[in-house]
């Protein structure tokens, strides 16, 4: 179910003196099963963009084609779209509300009008997908740790069986291991469940490590679009946009400048290590 965005523009406060173009003529296609990272400084339009993809926001002009159908067509069911495109907001654990974890995850499927058995089946599958320990199913969601709460909230979205999963800064505020657990989980959803993943993130290191493709948003436009290597090659421009490269990329540039013939396109620790070892053996 590929997503194609055509000339999408979103203006906040249209027809007022305060009109701001949050999205400015965006055109791109996201094929099935891709893991896309979206980066950009605060206010660059990242969250506005992803909220269009499940119809929470409607573009001022332009089109979004999901699975061959224009979601702005008159008879298109946005309800159906929202089942297929799951959106995990920032700090999703603030939306947990049920008396126990299991009921909370059941809430979405229950609203779909499924049978009792199917609701339970889906909730169990979703909780297993996020590796929630069984003994926590009947706990109050408020007794869980930060990372567990976040996984419970993600399970709530997964229980809707989405084809596309959008996550807005899912690791904010988590400790390093909690961050890695969430990212490993997302990667698994892509590789095993074949979901298309859109990850909005402020961590360049995480994005470099996990995604297939990076979209860089700046002033409501797509400034760069490519593999992590291609995008982080523009490290000077990224800094001007309030972004950065993974730390190791800077190390590689420094080393090259100082005369060690390393590969400056390395964006992960593993790539950097291999390239440095290779360069040292040549010296």
């Amino acid at each position: 179910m590929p997503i194609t965005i055509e000339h999408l523009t979103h203006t906040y406060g249209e027809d007022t003196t305060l009109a701001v173009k949050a999205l400015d003529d965006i055109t791109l296609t996201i094929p099935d099963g891709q893991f896309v990272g979206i980066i950009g400084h605060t206010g660059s339009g990242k969250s506005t963009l992803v909220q269009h993809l499940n119809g929470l926001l409607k573009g001022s002009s332009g089109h979004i084609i999901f699975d061959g159908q224009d979601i702005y067509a008159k008879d298109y069911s946005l309800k159906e779209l929202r089942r297929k495109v799951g959106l995990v907001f920032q700090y999703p654990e603030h939306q947990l509300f049920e008396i126990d974890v299991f009921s909370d995850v059941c809430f979405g499927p229950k609203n779909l009008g499924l049978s009792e058995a199917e609701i339970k089946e889906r909730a169990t599958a979703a909780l297993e997908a996020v590796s929630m320990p069984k003994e926590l199913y009947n706990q109050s969601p408020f007794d869980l740790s930060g990372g567990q709460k976040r996984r419970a909230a993600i399970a709530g979205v997964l229980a809707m069986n989405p084809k596309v999963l959008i996550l807005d800064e899912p690791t904010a505020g988590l400790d390093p291991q909690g961050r890695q657990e969430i990212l490993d989980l997302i990667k698994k959803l892509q590789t095993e469940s074949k979901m298309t993943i859109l990850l909005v993130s402020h961590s360049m290191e995480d994005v470099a490590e996990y995604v297939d493709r990076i979209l860089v948003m700046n002033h409501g436009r797509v400034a760069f679009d490519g593999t992590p290597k291609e995008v982080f090659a523009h490290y000077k421009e990224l800094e001007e946009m309030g972004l950065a490269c993974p730390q190791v990329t800077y190390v590689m540039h420094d080393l090259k400048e100082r005369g060690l013939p390393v590969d400056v396109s390395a964006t992960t620790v593993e790539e950097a290590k291999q390239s440095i070892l290779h360069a040292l053996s040549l010296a």
Partner: protein
Amino acid sequence: MSIVRTENLVHEYERRDEEGNIEGVTTAVDHVSLDVKEGSFIAILGHNGSGKSTLAKHINAILSPKEGTVWVDGLDTAKEENLWEVRQRAGMVFQNPDNQIIGQVVEEDVGFGPENMGVPTKEIWERVEESLRAVGMYEYRKYSPNKLSGGQKQRVSIAGVLAMHPKVIVFDEPTAMLDPGGRKEVIRAARGLNQVEGVTIILITHYMEEIVHADQVFVMDHGKIAMQGTPREIFSQMERLKDLRLDVPQVTLLAYELQQAGVPLPDGILTRKELVDALISPRIDSLP
């Protein structure tokens, strides 16, 4: 001279069931004794739920000790008559800038604290100006806070605390919601306050690379202090940090991996410059 001192500090949360009966007690801070020297830059690490925020909230008397004692600049925080004085001397900056800014205009927001303290109007304006200059936000004094970026808002929050002339500022994950540029701005502002104004800084964070310049690091686990030392001492114990759900800066990890592969690098490399200098040194260049 110690600015913050705790002795056998204990804090417990009561867990209650639906009827409000006490089910059990969680010890969030468990007999913690620490001593922070005036003018130093301290970092506190620890996984989610390790007790670091609970500890921090004792420093400006948002929480009062269940057992043990906390002194801020010599004042016992448990004594009610010290409360306002403690909160003026120990300021706090939180994670979400949007929850800390109340003014319609930047300079009004920064003046809010000193105004509440009864500072004379003329002096309020002096304090507002010097605080905004210290965090590099003076040009934005007439702006509406909602027109600012996350990093700028967070710097306004810092200026608001600074205008109360605190001796110590506790930063509780001040960069968790910011983009890389904003993170850099906030950390730079915190280091500037420490070095130029001599304000003691206590920084709580999950970003390991933010604390490589700290004077001392405390690592919390299960409400206790599990490790303490300089960043170099702490980050050279990678396995132990992993057990505590933590990590090392990416540069430190790369240096460690290279070391494992046989490159003779010194232990505990923390910054990009240290790693590059070490790799470029002639000793390594002449490897077989």
